[in-house]
């Protein structure tokens, strides 16, 4: 027990553990909708797009968080807009818009080598470098995202499952989608310094996929995903401390291990671990 408490004596580890747990839960909650909409690639793409926005905000001397979030929100709206053209499709729209934005960021960095060090944390994550301000930002976005899921639970579920009928039933699909895009962009911006652009997609996708293999109920999947994401952040931090490895990859490795275990066990039981009666 004392071994587990040992790293908590370090202030930077405590901060990192709190923010990693919150970020894991946040990404896992938003990720449920991302995965069920068949937009898993958007987490990967949008984090790259937001990286471009972050670089531009830095160069333009605009507040990093606001600039990057605004850029991410506009990118998400642009993806939704372009994806409506049947000749293009969602995957291609994500590919075009996000890689273009990422390329802009890299191009600006390559022009000024002094910028490179500032964005290493955004690319690869630096949990141990976070301060109380980062914890507040992640906690605030987690609060907003939780409020959105609570208030918009029904329309979000309806739109995610059946957007056509939801719209026909009077659900304001455009407004709900815009709200979701805003929260997704804010999630990626808030967790960028913690997990890194390159690993955010994993934190968005792996916990919901593991949760999906465990249950056939949406509500249960949401809770399980949040629990798996938070536990992944917490255990990943301990792993990074005791094995002496970077925190972002450690978190993703823990979540990936959970995926492998659940996948193997669910395969042995015909695709799902919980019995049929376990659904709500």
């Amino acid at each position: 027990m004392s071994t587990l408490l040992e790293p908590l004596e370090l202030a930077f580890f405590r901060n990192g553990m709190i923010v990693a747990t919150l970020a894991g839960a946040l990404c896992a909650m938003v990720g449920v909708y991302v995965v069920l909409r068949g937009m898993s690639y958007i987490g990967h793409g949008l984090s790259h797009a937001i990286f471009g926005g972050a670089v531009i905000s830095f160069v333009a001397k605009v507040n990093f968080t606001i600039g990057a979030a605004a850029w991410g929100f506009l990118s998400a709206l642009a993806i939704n807009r372009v994806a409506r053209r049947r000749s293009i499709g969602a995957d291609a729209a994500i590919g075009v818009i996000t890689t273009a934005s990422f390329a802009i960021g890299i191009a600006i960095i390559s022009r000024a080598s002094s910028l490179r060090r500032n964005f290493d944390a955004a690319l690869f994550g630096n949990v141990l470098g976070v301060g109380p301000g980062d914890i507040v930002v992640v906690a605030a976005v987690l609060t907003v995202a939780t409020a959105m899921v609570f208030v918009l639970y029904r329309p979000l579920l309806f739109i995610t499952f059946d957007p056509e009928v939801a719209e026909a039933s009077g659900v304001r699909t455009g407004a709900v989608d815009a709200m979701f895009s805003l929260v997704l962009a804010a999630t990626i911006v808030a967790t960028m310094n913690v997990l890194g652009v390159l690993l955010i997609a994993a934190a968005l996708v792996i916990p919901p996929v593991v949760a999906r293999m465990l249950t056939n109920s949406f509500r249960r999947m949401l809770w399980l995903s949040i629990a798996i994401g938070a536990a992944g952040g917490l255990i990943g931090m301990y792993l990074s401390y005791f094995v002496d490895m970077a925190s972002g990859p450690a978190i993703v490795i823990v979540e990936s291990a959970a995926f492998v275990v659940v996948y193997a066990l669910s395969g042995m039981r015909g695709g799902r671990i919980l019995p049929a009666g376990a659904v709500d």
Partner: protein
Amino acid sequence: MSDLIRLENVTCSYGGEPVLSHVDLTVHAGAFVGVVGPSGSGKSTLLKAITGSVKPVAGRILRPGGPVTVGYVPQVETVNWYFPVTVLEVVLMAATGRRLPWPSIAERRLAHDTLERLGLDAYASRHIRELSGGQQQRVFIARALFARPQLLLLDEPTSGVDVHTRHDVMHLLHDLHHDGLAILLTTHDLNGVAAHLPELVCLNREVVATGAPGDVLRPDVLERTYGAPMEVLSHGGMPVVVESVPPDELHGKPGHHEHSA
């Protein structure tokens, strides 16, 4: 009989050529109407125009008796059967009036009552993929019925199902119609579905003909609707459409086969 919905000169487009052109159509209270036509003829767009999810670029859609509650059942081929929802959760999606995530006691009771009416209450906690084809279709009809609609719209309700399931669904729809519900459905199945409905609309971007099956299932109307010759026979007083093209026509020797009875 009072008019529920009246389309006047309605034209709909997705940005290019009109998908529906100058459509005039009235749906009465208690009507049971089938819309037939080839793929791309605007059948699904007609339903979406009535629900309001597609806005006409010209013409207008009137509700002469005031607001009409509409239930919409999409094509089941579009459903993601691996989505983590139970039968009860699907039905409760239609309960859009409450802000709290969990259903009220009244909503839960209404959902169970609706499932009971459709013989599905025993499956309420099952995942939707664990049901048979007919039961799956009933789940989505239950969701549409949850809001107690005056008009039920169904897009290809018997598409891709076996004969038994088709009979099951059609019996259910006849029962609902008998209880006073107005029903408008689209179908490709001229003999198994359309011929058994009291009223048909032949659609090919514009309304080609409307009336009873015996009046509209005629070779000339079907040729104008589908752009291909069809024969119509009679079996027990019911029209039977022969959709196969004679071999000589496949080889470029068109012939006229009017064996309608």
